[in-house]
């Protein structure tokens, strides 16, 4: 029975004792607060005068500021349970002294003093209670359990109210102070016993301590104020709090004015306050237990945050229409029930989105600065407006404040998810997107960094830094790069010349001429080709000699030069040399001739007879032993002048079986030259390759040559439901890069999310069976776990087209971290996403607390109920590996 109730109100097995403790503690605190509220108000309004209420607000604000500085000094330094003890002891002393003054002294100052004591104590206790909660539960638990735990406060308030209503005439109003003191003693004892058994609060994080506590406290508040400037969430939260305080206190004043005029004696007023408190607490309690967390789960903290501002506007509207008892009752319902049920739990969640080490300071700042400021403004404005006589003036003030409150609450809601994502990003060490060039503002610092990079001993690192230097500083880079490459070997110089050719700096010409005579034949051919491509005048004189060179690369460079300069006199000689290179038995000559394929379309039509020789040359190169030569031959095919090269068919299909992934990739780049059925077969095989680069190359091949590649891939993925998770990943990445339709991506995300749910259900079914006795089922279990993660990845990848990529990265990293706190925060980020259908499924999957109930609901929708039917489902799944494992499992299962 208890378990069923616990499941209904979302308590997990290990949490019952904690929840019971917090419920009891907050019950005692709530009970005391009810006694304090009712008696402080009644005594002050009747024995001192409600007209002094605005002045009291100003006094309370100043005192609140001072006491809160002291609070800020200790908030993060000591465990919150110890701070509770300090608060309780202080309050007990003050209450008993005040009771003595009221009972045995004639002074009327005791009533405003008692009023102030209550106001300060209630604020400090409320702030600290929330802080205590966050030091004992993680964010997911806070979200799930805080409405229930705060319901303990409501129970207490209700009980206190009933006690007030029933005993106000018999006990005497002032004697309730003694009862409140007794409740505080009980709270003290409860906390002491609990922490003696369970130790310090588990999420307490002490900060650094300094000798100067006051200075430290001021520093804490200053840090909090500093953080307000940089944090959108804290800024919106603080401004919203400012207007909330004005809204609240103007409403308090308004309704209390009506009640004071309605009830003549302090006993009847106290009794009424007791009844009002009890009734509003019951309403608040029912809302907190049965409504709040359901709304939080369905709509998220962002939307629930707006309920109280909206109802406040309605309260003022009612008061504007009719400043009478019924409107006052509605106002009281709003500020006591609706605020406690919706605003307080949500406010805690928003604070928990801030970094842990700043939460205490942020709360302290709100109590030290924001609330006192707002209270002072409220008091001042009310004091002026109550002199005008007509209550409409201050009701209008309240309405204005409530409207501003709504506006800033909305801004708070918008900042919540981004703050959560930003914190997660820091905790999970997710780097900023973009490369070194995009992240630097200071160009001198960037230049220095890149310059140091090109001095690296590793040639490839030097090359990459040179590439970046050339991009970022095209004027300054060439000189530096040319100085650097003096020490490099010739093959590396070759790469650098090709790099520098793209910008054609003036220094390059001189460098090339200076290097020509000292270079080996390979580098010489590169230098000649570079000079020819720059159409260097003096270089033209080298053509004739180069054409008759023994070295095929130099000859090829010369042939290129003849084409480039369009030298008609050397043309016949160049063509003969070209033919010799193509038909030669020397692999070196054949390879050199491949470089000329790029220029084939530029040549005279009579050269087309070379194509036949090229065909046999390439086929010969593709069947030799060296992978390097095969790759060179494959690369040259990108310039093949014909649309098809059918003779390649057998060759490419054989080459595709190579263990070298780079050869497989090169095959895919040119599979469009093959007959249609070979091409399709190769792509289908490649898209399931074990190497991710090969899979990407297969998808790129589709994008290069299909008529409508996006439609083709969507059809493959969605309509025909083909491919393993990894193949789908490659396809999705390509669709994302091609800006596929958002509707399609949403459909894919939804499909994948549902698939993940089904796979998870399959995994759970298996776990609940005797799978360890059967090796095939054991393998099935591993496979299902892997497929689950892969399917979640696919869902998030598809969501990237619809949401902020950084938020998706954060969610992905948080889920992979397997840390429950990070997962809980990731779920909050998901709640804020636009595509709630998908986000809700993901939240269902990862939010353990809801799984028991939602699982039963979702199980009914699953296509299988037992292990055997699950295996049949897996056998028919689109993933080939899952199918294979399921087939094995079914064989052993029978």
């Amino acid at each position: 029975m208890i378990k069923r109730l616990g499941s209904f109100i979302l308590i997990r097995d290990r949490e019952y004792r904690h929840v019971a403790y917090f419920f009891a503690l907050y019950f005692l605190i709530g009970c005391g607060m009810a006694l304090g509220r009712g008696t402080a108000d009644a005594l002050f309004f009747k024995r001192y005068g409600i007209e002094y209420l605005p002045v009291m607000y100003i006094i309370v604000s100043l005192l609140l500021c001072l006491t809160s500085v002291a609070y800020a000094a200790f908030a993060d330094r000591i465990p919150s349970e110890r701070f509770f003890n300090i608060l309780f002891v202080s309050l007990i002393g003050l209450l008993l002294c005040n009771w003595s003054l009221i009972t045995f002294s004639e002074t009327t100052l005791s009533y405003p003093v008692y009023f102030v004591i209550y106001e300060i104590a209630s604020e400090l206790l409320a702030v600290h209670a929330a802080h205590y909660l966050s030091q004992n539960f993680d964010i997911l638990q806070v979200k799930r359990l805080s409405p229930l735990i705060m319901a303990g406060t409501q129970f207490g308030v209700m009980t206190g109210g009933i006690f007030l209503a029933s005993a106000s005439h018999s006990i005497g109003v002032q004697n309730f102070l003694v009862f409140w003191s007794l409740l505080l003693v009980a709270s003290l004892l409860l906390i002491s016993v609990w922490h003696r058994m369970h130790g310090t609060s588990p999420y307490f994080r002490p900060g650094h301590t300094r000798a100067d506590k006051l200075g430290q406290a001021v520093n804490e508040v200053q840090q909090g104020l500093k953080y307000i400037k940089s944090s959108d969430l804290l800024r919106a939260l603080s401004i919203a709090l400012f207007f909330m305080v004005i809204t609240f206190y103007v409403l308090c004043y308004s309704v209390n004015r009506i009640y004071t005029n309605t009830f003549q004696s302090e006993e009847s007023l106290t009794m009424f306050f007791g009844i009002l408190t009890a009734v509003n607490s019951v309403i608040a309690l029912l809302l907190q237990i049965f409504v709040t967390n359901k709304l939080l789960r369905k709509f998220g903290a962002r939307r629930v945050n707006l309920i109280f501002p909206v109802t406040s506007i309605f309260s003022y509207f009612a008061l504007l229409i009719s400043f009478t008892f019924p409107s006052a009752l509605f106002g009281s319902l709003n500020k006591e029930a609706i605020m406690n049920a919706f605003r307080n739990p949500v406010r805690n969640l928003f604070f928990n989105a801030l970094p842990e080490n700043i939460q205490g300071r942020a709360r302290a700042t709100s109590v030290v600065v924001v609330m006192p400021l707002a209270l002072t403004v409220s008091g001042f404005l009310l004091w002026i407006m109550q002199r005008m006589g007509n209550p409409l003036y201050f009701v209008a003030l309240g309405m204005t404040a409530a409207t501003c409150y709504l506006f800033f609450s909305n801004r708070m809601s918008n900042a919540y998810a981004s703050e959560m994502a930003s914190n997660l990003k820091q905790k999970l060490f997710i780097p900023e997107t973009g490369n070194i060039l995009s992240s630097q503002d200071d160009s001198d610092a960037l230049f220095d960094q890149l310059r140091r990079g090109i001095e690296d001993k590793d040639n490839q690192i030097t090359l990459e830094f040179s590439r970046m230097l050339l991009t970022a500083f095209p004027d300054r880079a060439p000189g530096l790069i040319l100085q650097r490459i003096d020490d490099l070997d010739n093959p590396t110089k070759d790469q650098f010349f090709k790099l520098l050719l793209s910008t054609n700096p003036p220094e390059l010409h001189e460098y090339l001429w200076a290097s020509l005579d000292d270079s080996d034949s390979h580098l010489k051919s590169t230098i000649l080709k570079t000079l020819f491509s720059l159409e260097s005048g003096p270089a033209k004189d080298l053509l004739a000699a180069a054409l008759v060179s023994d070295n095929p690369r130099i000859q090829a460079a010369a042939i290129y030069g003849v084409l480039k300069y369009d030298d008609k006199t050397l043309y016949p000689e160049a063509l003969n040399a070209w033919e010799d290179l193509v038909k030669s038995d020397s692999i070196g000559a054949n390879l050199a001739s491949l470089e000329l394929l790029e220029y084939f379309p530029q040549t005279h039509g009579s050269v087309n007879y070379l194509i036949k020789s090229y065909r046999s040359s390439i086929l010969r190169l593709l069947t030799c032993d060296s992978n390097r030569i095969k790759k060179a031959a494959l690369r040259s095919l990108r310039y093949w002048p014909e649309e098809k090269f059918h003779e390649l068919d057998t060759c490419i299909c054989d080459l595709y079986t190579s263990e070298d992934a780079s050869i497989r990739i090169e095959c895919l780049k040119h599979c469009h030259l093959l007959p249609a059925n070979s091409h399709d077969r190769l792509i289908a095989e490649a898209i399931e390759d074990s190497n991710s680069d090969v899979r990407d190359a297969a998808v790129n091949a589709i994008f290069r040559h299909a008529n409508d590649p996006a439609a083709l891939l969507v059809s493959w993925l969605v309509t025909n439901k083909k491919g393993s998770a990894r193949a789908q990943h490659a396809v999705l990445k390509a669709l994302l890069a091609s800006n596929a339709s958002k509707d399609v991506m949403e459909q894919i995300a939804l499909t994948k999310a549902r698939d993940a749910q089904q796979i998870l259900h399959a995994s759970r079914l298996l776990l609940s069976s005797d799978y360890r006795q059967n090796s095939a089922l054991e393998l099935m279990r591993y496979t299902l776990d892997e497929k689950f993660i892969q399917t979640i990845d696919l869902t998030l990848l598809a969501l990237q087209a619809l949401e902020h990529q950084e938020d998706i990265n954060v969610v992905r990293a948080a889920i992979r971290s397997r840390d429950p706190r990070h997962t809980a925060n990731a779920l909050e980020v998901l709640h804020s996403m636009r595509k709630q259908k998908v986000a809700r499924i993901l939240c269902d999957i990862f939010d353990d607390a809801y799984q028991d109930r939602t699982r039963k609901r979702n199980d009914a929708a699953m296509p299988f109920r037992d292990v055997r039917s699950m295996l049949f489902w897996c056998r028919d799944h689109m993933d080939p590996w899952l199918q294979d494992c399921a087939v094995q499992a079914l064989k052993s299962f029978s």
Partner: protein
Amino acid sequence: MSDLYSRILLLKKSHIFSEVLTEDLRTVAQALENEAYVSGDRIFDICQQGDRMYMIERGKIGISIDPDPVKKEFVTTMGPGDCFGEMNLLDELPRSATAYVIEDSSVLSLHKDKLRGLIVNYPELSLGILKSLSLRLRSTTLLLQSAQKD
């Protein structure tokens, strides 16, 4: 269950391959070689240079760290499903123990050159191996911390 799938399951249960996807373990499973030993054999000796890891299909192997490879004082015994010698797939250090065949055994071995060849062509294998090593390091650190506290 067929031989290939049994091998995949064995690999998945080993420390070094626990974080590699079962799909990727197909290529590794195909590179495994069967070896048979009779009781009394020594698979490798302490301080010997090693180049492969072993997984026990059948039989019993005793591990000894005594510097004398002939002495049979076992610190642990291993049975079907267990693997040993896996660190030699990645490092060049000599064997840290002697492996004795207590009962007639059938083992699957993986040579490090084969694994390296697979890693070159299937880089995702290396990611999975790195993840496994990282998780093992974390759990060792936690064990050390709790031992220090005791």
